[in-house]
Every structure is written in C-alpha cells, then in structure tokens.
C-alpha cells in the first residue's frame, strides 16, 4: 500500500470514543428538549393511568401483602413501578420508531457512516435513549410523590441501576424490532402488537397471584413476558430490595436483544443488507 494508505490507520483514542458517545447522548437529549410535546405526552400518559385508572381500581382490587411491600398498599402504590416501566416501554418503542424514521430521513445513515465501530454506535444510541427514559421516569416520580406515593428516600437512588438496565432492555428490543419488521413503521402497529400485549400481560396492573387465580394461561404468558421482570426489578429496587430472578432475566434479555440488534445492523449479515436501504 502507498504511504497515503498508512497515515490514517491509527485507531481512535479513548477520549475520542467518549466524545462520540457524549455526542450521541447529547443529541438525543437535545431532540427530547426540542420536542416538548413528546415530553409532555410521556409524562401525561402514566399520570392518566395513575389518577384515573388507579382511582377506579382501588375499590375493586385489594392487594394483599406481597414482597417487597411489608404492609397493605394502595393500588396506586402497587401500580407505580408498572407505570415507570411503561414509560420506558413507550420510550424504547418510540426511539426505535425514530430510528426507522431516521433511517428514511437519513439521520441513521449519518450515524452509521461514522468511522467508529458499529456496535459502539448502536450501544451509544441505546444508552442515549435509556438516559432520556430515566429522566422521564424521575419526572413521573416527582408527580407521584406529590400524589402521596412515597417510596423510601434511598429507593429513588437504588432504582437508578434498575431503570438503566430495564431501559437498555426495552430500547434494545425496540432497536431489534426497528431493523427486523417493516410493518411496525407506524405507531398503531407497535401499540397493538408490542406495547399493549407486553403491558397487559405483565405484573404492571395486577399481581401475578391474582392473575393465576383467574387464568393459568394468562399467568404463564405473564411469566414468559420479559416486561414482567423489568417491572419487578424496578419494584423491588424502589423498596431497597433485589429481585435476583428479575435481575437475571432482565440482564440476559438485555444482552440477547442488544446482540440481536447489533447483528441486525451488521453490514455483512444484517437484515437491512438483505432487504435494501429503503427508498430508491
């Protein structure tokens, strides 16, 4: 090779990797700030559930003492971790949709022509969307606190790693779906086929023992739903406990979905390579 070919073969430094990562997270945060209606709807959605749905259900559903709670809890206390996870579920799917949209608009293309390794770029993108979802969850927790839902003070800190992990899992799932399934390019499709089934067939709205009593089949589905484990991880962490099963499931699903998403965006084997870039 000629001299010109050798000159630029040096890899990037660690500092440059961090600049790149910071840039990706910073852009996602800027977009979120600029799209004010997205933030408001992200906050309003769980609050509607909390204020209206939980108020109605409170009279119907009695929640017995189950871990991690050490006393009877009001329904809105029970449902709060589910709603926190719902925020992340919506955010994960929304950012996956924005990837599809980005890909068509070309923003995703700009990300992928960066000389950094593609897995690094995709994980950066995942971290960025997770960071945004964590901000949304804390905004929700502030309002919930005003509503009288007061987990232990340290719980707010203990829940952070749980939220990062569950945010990564749901973001990676969204990323995998965005690369794999073209039909999901409108939000109604994602609502019907991903968000609703995952949300309702989980421990978000009712404890699983209650589900088991009414339908063993639905109970089994709930047990197989990774979203259930995200909720339980968050629920236990918020009350300063670790649900090891949930941790194991969420951690391994995060690895699995992330690997799947990286594979799907791999230039050699990926799904986009097989079906073309979209557009001309």
């Amino acid at each position, binding site marked *: *090779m*000629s*001299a*010109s*070919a050798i000159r*630029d*073969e040096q*890899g*990037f*430094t660690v500092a*440059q*990797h961090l*600049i*790149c990562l*910071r*840039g*990706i997270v*910073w*852009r996602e945060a*800027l*977009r979120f700030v*600029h*799209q004010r209606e997205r933030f408001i709807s992200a906050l309003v959605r769980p609050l509607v559930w909390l204020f209206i749905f939980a108020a109605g259900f409170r009279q119907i559903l009695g929640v017995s003492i189950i871990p991690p709670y050490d006393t009877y809890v009001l329904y809105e206390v029970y449902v709060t971790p589910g709603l926190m996870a719902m925020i992340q579920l919506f955010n994960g799917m929304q950012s996956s949709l924005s990837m599809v949209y980005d890909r*068509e*608009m*070309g*923003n995703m*293309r*700009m*990300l*992928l*022509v*960066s*000389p*950094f*390794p*593609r897995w690094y*770029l995709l994980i950066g993108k995942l971290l960025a969307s997770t960071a945004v979802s964590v901000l949304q969850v804390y905004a929700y927790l502030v309002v919930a606190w005003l509503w009288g839902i007061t987990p232990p003070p340290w719980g707010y800190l203990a829940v952070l790693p749980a939220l990062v992990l569950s945010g990564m899992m749901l973001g990676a799932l969204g990323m995998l779906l965005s690369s794999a399934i073209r039909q999901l390019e409108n939000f109604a499709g994602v609502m019907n086929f991903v968000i609703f089934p995952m949300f309702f067939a989980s421990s978000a709205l009712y404890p699983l023992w209650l589900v088991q009593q009414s339908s063993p089949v639905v109970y089994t589905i709930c047990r197989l739903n990774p979203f259930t484990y995200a909720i339980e991880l968050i629920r236990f962490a918020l009350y300063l406990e670790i649900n090891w099963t949930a941790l194991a499931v969420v951690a391994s699903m995060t690895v699995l979905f992330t690997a799947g998403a990286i594979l799907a965006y791999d*230039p*050699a084997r*990926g799904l*986009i*390579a*097989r*079906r*073309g*870039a979209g*557009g*001309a």
Partner: protein
Amino acid sequence: MSATIVQAASAPSGLDATPALAVHGVSHSYGSRKALVDVSLAVQQGRFTVLLGLNGAGKTTLFSLITRLYDTQRGSVDVLGHPVARQPGAALRLLGVVFQARTLDLDLSVMENLLYHAALHGIGGREARRRSQAALEEVEMADRARDTARKLSGGQMRRVEIARALLHRPRVMVLDEPTVGLDVASRAAILRHVRTLVRERGVAVLWATHLLDEVQPEDAAVVLHLGRVLAAGDVPDVIRSAGAADMRGAFTALTGGAAAREAE
C-alpha cells in the same frame, strides 16, 4: 459478462497513483432483483468524477456500499487503498458523504447538527466549534448557525450538509444527487463550491447525477445504466469512444444502445 474495462482517468501530477476510491467487480442483488452487476470504477485523487445514471441505474445502491450501510455481496470497495469491508474505520474517516435524502436533524440548530457530526468523528470541544464555524463561513451560512435546520431552504440545507461532510477533513467526497430539487442558482452555487474544493484542496469527488449539464470537459465520467458500467474515463474519451459530439449524445448512444440490446 466480463469485467467492464475501466480506463483509469489520469490523476493530476503531484499525487500518488492510489485511486481515491476504487470499486472492483461489485455485484449486488435484493432478492432476485439485480441492482448492480460487476461494477468497477475508479475516482482519482484530486479529480471531479461524475457518476451519470438515470433513476434506477443503481447509484443509491452503490452509495450504500461505498458508505458501508451494508457489505458488498461480490467485489470490493477501497477508499485510498483501505478496503471498506475489512478496514471500515480507516476508510470511513477519509470519506465525506452527502446523501440524496436530507440528513440534517430538523429539530436541532445548524451548529448543533455540525457539532453532532464532529462528535461522530471523535472531534469535540473547542476544536469542533472552531471547525464548524469555519465550515459554515465557507458556505456563507455562518449567520444561520443558531437557526433550527427546519427554517432553511433546500439549497441552504445542502450547503450545510456539504460543510458538515468536510468537518473531519476527508480526502474523498461522495455526493448522491446533491442538486436534486434545487433551483438553478442554488445548483450552480453548490456545484461551483464543490469544484473549488477539488481544485484548491485536492479533494477527490464522486458526484452522482442524472443532469448532463453538470458535466464539464475536464471531468472524469462513469456512465451507469441498469446496474452496469457502460463507459468510464476522461469525458472527452467517453464522448469519442461513444462516437458522439458531446456528453448528451454519448449518454443517449450508450444507454439507448443498452436498452435496445435488452429489448432483443
């Protein structure tokens, strides 16, 4: 079909002979649809090379392969001697890209768009700001730095995209139909600017277009039609070998001939 013979358009003196961009025997299909068949071409350092083709010729697929959205199924792409498939980092660092689709983030300001791109190339802090400012001044967009990209006209967006593509000082630039949808004045301004980059900084350019009036006699040209390279070389040579008087005649003769052969 044997490999299309590519006459290497000669590089200007003073640069080594490694092609800025070399595409060797690239074929690509989407399912059963063949988008590119045995495509070879070379862009010499410091030259303006026009990739001429109608819509559906395979230009966008070729750009996807050059920018490694996905790997080539057959053949290879080298940027200044770096194979894109095996050394993507080294190749992509040397490459500046302007896609056909608009790729500015419309919710972000012009400056934020540039800083984001700089970060994607590992350039941050004051250096990123300095380069972005300089790049905007160069395309006379410095006064719009704080505006959101949404407020820009099509021509202004393109100018910003070109400024952005140059932030990491690439030595090769590929532009996919950069003048599509622009008015005559914007088209001329952008074309003039990119030609200046070639002349003054020795950037090698691959400029995809279907507009024949964007070709100049001193350019190199590659004619792509239905996924195949029909002719390549210095513009006068392409015109002469097609037996035509000008590029328009040459293009018609080449593509019309191919269309006629297909019809048989």
